[in-house]
């Protein structure tokens, strides 16, 4: 998917799309995994976590972008974290009000969204230097890409580890579930699998082996 380089301040949908594939936060940038893996053992939890992160990303990008000329360089990281923490606290209370059961399932990991390198990274790299419109699109794209990635993890883990998807049983009783998938180890394996798939696909697309080096450390 070729990415056009905008010269003017036009709102290009590329800002949004880049977050889905080319710069997908989880699979390509390998960012923000911490909270992702622990609670993506079912599709529903993964979706909830993704949407919560999307909300925080969107709001913090918007606020930081609109205040960008107001914040001196010296205190910028502190202010970014303050803003992000505010929205994480807000989303925490919102989830508690919507569904106590979901809140208990996600636990402290909602609060941990605040140390998700993705959000701080976008604030520093993008929102602090671009208009509100573009920052919102960027946040939206990255957030949706993140949610989709989490969904991939959660869906695979739930289908293989519980025989269901979003709580709906898929297989008859004879299906032997792979309990390890629901457990943390399964999270590691599933993410490794998806990363491999992504890397292979990107390698094919780019036709170059160097992309593997980008993903490697």
């Amino acid at each position, binding site marked *: 998917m070729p990415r056009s380089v905008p010269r003017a*301040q036009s709102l290009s949908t590329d800002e949004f799309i880049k977050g889905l594939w080319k710069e997908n936060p989880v699979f390509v940038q390998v960012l923000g995994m911490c909270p992702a893996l622990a609670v993506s053992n079912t599709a529903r939890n993964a979706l909830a976590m993704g949407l919560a992160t999307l909300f925080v990303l969107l709001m913090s990008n918007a606020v930081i972008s609109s*205040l*960008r*000329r*107001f*914040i*001196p*360089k*010296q*205190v910028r990281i*502190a*202010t970014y974290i*303050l*803003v992000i*923490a*505010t929205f994480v*606290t*807000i989303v925490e*209370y*919102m989830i*508690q*009000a919507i569904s*106590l*059961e979901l809140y*208990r399932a996600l636990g402290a990991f909602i609060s941990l969204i605040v140390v998700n390198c993705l959000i701080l990274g976008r604030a520093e790299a993008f929102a*602090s*230097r*671009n208009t509100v419109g*573009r920052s919102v699109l960027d946040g939206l794209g990255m957030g949706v890409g993140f949610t989709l990635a989490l969904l991939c993890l959660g869906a695979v883990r739930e289908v293989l*580890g*519980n025989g269901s998807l979003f709580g709906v049983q898929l297989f008859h009783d004879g299906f032997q*579930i792979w*309990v390890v998938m*629901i*457990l943390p180890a399964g999270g590691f394996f599933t993410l490794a699998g998806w990363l491999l798939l992504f890397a292979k696909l990107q390698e094919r697309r780019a036709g170059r082996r160097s992309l593997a080096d980008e993903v490697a450390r």
Partner: protein
Amino acid sequence: MNRPGPIEPTSAPSTWHMYRAMVGIGSLCGLLIVTVFQLTRPVIERNKAEALQRAIFDVLPDARSSTTFRFDGNSRFVILGEEQTSDPLVYAGYDESQRLVGLAVEARGMGYQDVIRVLYGYSFAEDAIIGIHVLESKETPGLGDKIERDPAFLENFQRLDVSLSDDLTRIVHPIEPVKHGNKERPWQVDGITGATISSIAIADMLSKSTAHWIPKIRQSLDDFRKAG
């Protein structure tokens, strides 16, 4: 200055600018948080109360209403008012005619994976536990989490004997876990094959909790009856 790119460095950013930014943004954030908090608090309290009620009615099937009591540390149970407290709580259940049905008590203990919390219902009439409800558990799905779903296991708690000695100070036969299929006495808990540790954990935490609370509760029977 309408183009993307690095922020142009301001010359000598004054302390005033830094304070202005931090304090200004801090106040804005504070305002946002407090607003959302106030808006959501009533909803959250209601959700919590409803969830608790459902758990209480689950373990005390005949109950239609409940009253929360706190233990004052000596020997009295006092009705909980609006105050915040860290005293242990018990929940008394009453039927339509305001007669005391039983008491719901919370117990916790270490399971296989992490701490398990359960609510159990105690009936004065039967001198036994008449139901349990798992409040929180992180046991292995498909294995340990059978403590929540296995009907044979849950049957243990339909009438789990915890009768007291004549002087009402201790339980005559403490709850004990046994291997699956070996249950012979009403105070024994039949384990789940394949989820031994989780089922033993439940039995142990109930044993400890009942040994601690049932004598105290029994001695305050009148306090509970009066509140009905």
